[in-house]
């Protein structure tokens, strides 16, 4: 939002512009978090390579070696079916990160559309859309997600091939979380749109006869990208948490597909026999989510220093 407001601000209040990357690096914590996230993502992507290097199979069940302690072959020990914990964590990371990214992008897409339409057209459409958004924010989201996660896809007009496929729980979780998660972006984009809407370049485009969809897509959206990027980054963490909760309750990603959340489904029974099984997946979720949150916070400072001033960073 900075790039188009300085005209109104007194010149003295504006410090010398600092390059974007320097402001970002100045937030050292965010930079460290970015590195951590890249490392976790790379490790998750490299899961098949690690599998080959260790000479193990992530899905091979070995009931004579259940709850094995960490050793040379199984670096983090084995789970209740004798599967290698490290490999399960890496494959689970692929799923959890995929869900986080896909949902955050989908929700941003819905939220940006709602926000820009509400902000651009204003009037009754705006108030209807914003009442809808407020209504969504006030609802108890988790119980609703549980109902959505429990419905039988075979009762919907969906081809049986998809409804019965193994990966369907993955698609389902992505869609339903995106359906309830778009509200923050919608509100941010709406208020940013309101501030751009009456700017000269928008008025000029209107005078030249550009259609509303074109104005929204080509002139307004590029100017409200900063809040979208920040909100998307922050929402990845929230989505990973939500996915883990649903999977923990047994309603998210379904085994045998591992996710950090569903690896904790049995954690409560395991905590006295094999505490490490209850600790590692949660630790991975925690570190990943906190890293995304710090990263989003740093991005906010870098892209939008004005908005972060009240926080004093």
């Amino acid at each position: 939002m900075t790039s188009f407001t300085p005209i109104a601000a007194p010149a003295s209040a504006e410090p010398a512009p600092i390059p974007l990357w320097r402001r970002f690096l100045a937030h050292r914590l965010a930079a460290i978090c970015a590195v951590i996230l890249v490392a976790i993502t790379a490790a998750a992507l490299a899961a098949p390579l690690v599998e080959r290097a260790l000479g193990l199979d992530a899905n091979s069940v070995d009931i004579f070696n259940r709850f094995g302690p960490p050793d040379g072959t199984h670096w983090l020990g084995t789970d209740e079916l004798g599967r290698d914990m490290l490999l399960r964590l890496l494959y689970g990371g692929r799923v959890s990160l995929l869900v986080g990214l896909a949902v955050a992008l989908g929700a941003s897409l819905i939220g940006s559309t709602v926000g820009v339409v509400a902000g651009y057209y204003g009037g009754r459409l705006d108030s209807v859309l914003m009442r809808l958004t407020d209504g969504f924010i006030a609802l108890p989201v988790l119980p609703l997600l549980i109902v959505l996660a429990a419905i039988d896809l075979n009762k919907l007009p969906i081809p049986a091939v998809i409804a019965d496929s193994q990966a369907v729980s993955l698609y389902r979780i992505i869609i339903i979380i995106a359906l309830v998660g778009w509200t923050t972006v919608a509100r941010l984009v709406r208020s940013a749109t309101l501030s751009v809407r009456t700017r000269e370049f928008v008025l000029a485009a209107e005078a030249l006869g550009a259609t509303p969809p074109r104005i929204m897509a080509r002139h307004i959206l590029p100017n409200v990208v900063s809040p979208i990027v920040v909100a998307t980054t922050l929402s990845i963490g929230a989505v990973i948490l939500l996915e883990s909760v649903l999977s923990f309750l047994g309603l998210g990603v379904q085994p045998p597909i591992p996710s950090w959340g569903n690896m904790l489904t049995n954690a409560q029974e395991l905590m006295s026999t094999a505490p490490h099984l209850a600790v590692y997946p949660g630790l991975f979720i925690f570190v990943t989510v906190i890293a995304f949150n710090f990263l989003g916070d740093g991005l906010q400072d870098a892209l939008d220093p004005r908005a972060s001033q009240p926080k004093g960073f």
Partner: protein
Amino acid sequence: MAHYLIGRLAEALVVLIIMSFVIFFLIALMPGDPIDVMIASNPELTPADAVRLRALHGLDLPIWQRYVNWLTAALGGDLGFSRNFNRPVFEVLLPRLGNTVILLGISSILAIAIAIPLGIIAALRPHSLADGAVNLFCFAGISIPPFWFAILLIMLFAVTLGLLPAGGVEPIDGGGLAGRARHLILPVAALALASLAGFTRFMRASMMEALRQDYIRTARAKGLTDRRVVIGHALRNAMLPLVTIIALDFGSLFSGALVTETVFAYLGMGKLIVDAIFGNDFNLALVALLMATFVVLIGNLLADVGYAFLDPRISFRSLEARR
């Protein structure tokens, strides 16, 4: 004010009816229907019996007609039976609702009571070590998976140290108030953490904003002590936005309660909803979900009213205009 309240309550009723419609349809999409469950538990039922039973319970009607039937009965005060408890839904719900309100109430009060001083400490010395520590704590609080934190609490306090019960509402032999209190400690701690972190971050920002205002400079110029400036002038104004956040937080607070109740086997509304959905007790699930929505809507309303009472600049007329 009466006008405003009636308007808001009418709105809440409309939201509830829309929700009942949506949830009714979603529940109809869940695997299995009541008769399937009966067949599974009673091998002597023939397919002909199943058809007859479906007709008897109106399950062969189109979905919209079933919804209208349900709504007519519900508006007439008949919320139906819970299949798994074999009792009227309302009788099952009421004690659970009480348990959840106790859990939510205590953890909200605890969260607010801790968040306010933490936020003030952080706001008074931005960028200090204390501020950094509070900030780190807040980020950790919003980033930790709530159910995992609850499990860690159980591992430490119940399994390893054996100090507190791992779950339930009260000891089997009753145990009175002390027994109930002991069972509340861990769930309350688990539930309070997430909202605590959010509230603290908000309190800090709001306090820093208040400290920048002109009246603070005036108060300092008058020679008031720091203590009186902060508590008497800044805090009062910084508290107001917090009320809004608490109101907006009701929905997620209930979601948090659902997770906490499930992990600690605490017999509240959240656990009831999860159990009803897993146990194919659809009518109970439907009414419990609506009840949860109602509680959240009322919570939002109370917070808005409280806001108008706390801030003399806001009148009910302006609240109405804002809508």
